[in-house]
């Protein structure tokens, strides 16, 4: 077990790698979602408006 504090604002090697792992899994999900909305588009289902532009932070 290590107790040395990680440097300030350094993502750390572990934090870096885990992001890559999540990226692989979730990048896929985003891609699937994007193509899914395209497929829905063919059937005339419009994607929802870009929510971040008008949503207020809860």
């Amino acid at each position, binding site marked *: *077990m*290590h107790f*040395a*504090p*990680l440097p*300030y*604002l350094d*993502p*750390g*090697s*572990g*934090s*870096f*790698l*885990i*992001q*890559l*792992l*999540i*990226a*692989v*899994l*979730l*990048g896929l*999900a*985003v*891609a699937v979602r994007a193509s899914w909305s395209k497929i829905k588009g063919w059937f005339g289902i419009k994607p929802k408006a870009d929510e*971040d*532009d008008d*949503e*207020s*932070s*809860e």
Partner: protein
Amino acid sequence: MMTNQVNSGQLAASFRDPSGFLFSRGGVLYRQVNRKYEQEYMLLMESGLYEKLVKAGLLIPHVEVDPLPVGGEMAFRVIQPERVPFISYPYEWSFGQLKDAALATLSIQRRALKAGMSLKDASAYNIQFVRGKAMLIDTLSFEIYKEGQPWVAYRQFCQHFLAPLALMALKDIRLNQLLRVYIDGVPLDLASQLLPWTTRFNFGLLTNIHLHASAQKKYAGEEVKSRGGATFGRQAMTGLIDSLDATVRKLNWNPGGTEWGNYYDITNYSDAAFEHKKQLVDEWVKRVNPALAWDLGANNGIFSRVASSNGSFVVAFDIDPAAVEQNYRQAKGEKTENLLPLLLDLTNPSPSLGWANRERDSFGSRGPANLVLALAVIHHLAISNNVPLPQLADFFAETGKWLVVEFVPKSDSQVRKLLASREDIFPNYTREGFEAAFKKRFTIHHAADVHESERVLYLMEGK
């Protein structure tokens, strides 16, 4: 505000950041933007990101100050941010407050990415509640987004927000107090050990906490070179932020089952007594007209609202996480802008914390308030916590100029309950003893017997 200051008015909470620093001049708070941060600052202002964030209530508004009050070679600009009426810390927030701060941080990061920027830190201490909303107060938190780079603040987000929220929701609500010990957030290996084993079936917690903790341990100190395909594209970044957002949203905690959650249902108050108390508080708040009022032992904020509806900014402190949560939800629902519910144990209030004990201010140094409400708390402090009355008077005299305080005599059924299981070692705990102790530090302007009760309400002014 008696905030911790180092040389030349520079505030100790912002010393780490090379982009700039906070300082105060003549009671006004400024933030210097260093030359080093020119490019980032200009992109924030010119890309429309600043405007969007301010409009959405996610970033503290500021004005640029000209001429520079300090100048110096390092200075690029000096900005004056809107004053935060009361600085609070994550270990003083209820579950809902920490969750809203987490969601605000992610929402800011999403908008920043669209503008070609990214948050370089995700510290819970950069969020404050202003006009009832969780808002980023560090205007210099943005860096220019370089596609392919992972989120530099990811670990900090997990430690400051995700880990404590998961522990509070899934293990024990009181574990938010770990934030008081670990100033840079809950270490992920600790969170991983404390969380129920079943959280490994939750994808977000499995990856962002459990696997994250294992990876930190396994790759500690190793140099990671990004190889050919191992870059972190924009889509990956969006996926990560969405995943964190979904994981945070799914964490929930509902008040109830704690000590005071249903306090007003179990008091010995009649409706008439309650109404009379409210009416007295209202009358005296109008008379004192305080800018800043602290309600100590506020429960879910009934009396805090009497003060806030008169225009005061009220900080409503209570020891019970359920009461604070209820209070926060109500304030949020009603869009109350001048009421801030916070968690505080009056018998052990927030200390000064951090580097040289100067980064986070203690409870006392964030005062004094213009008015302190201490309703139905004296008996808890004097009898349950054994604080002698003269010391209580000293404490309240240091905490606020004016005091509305309720004396609850021994004959009161609540006090009898407190004394039922212990020896009565409080011979001076009488109305006379109370008044004698408080007269040393206060002038008593009013003493009113609360209708249909044995309690007395006082309006006092500090000497």
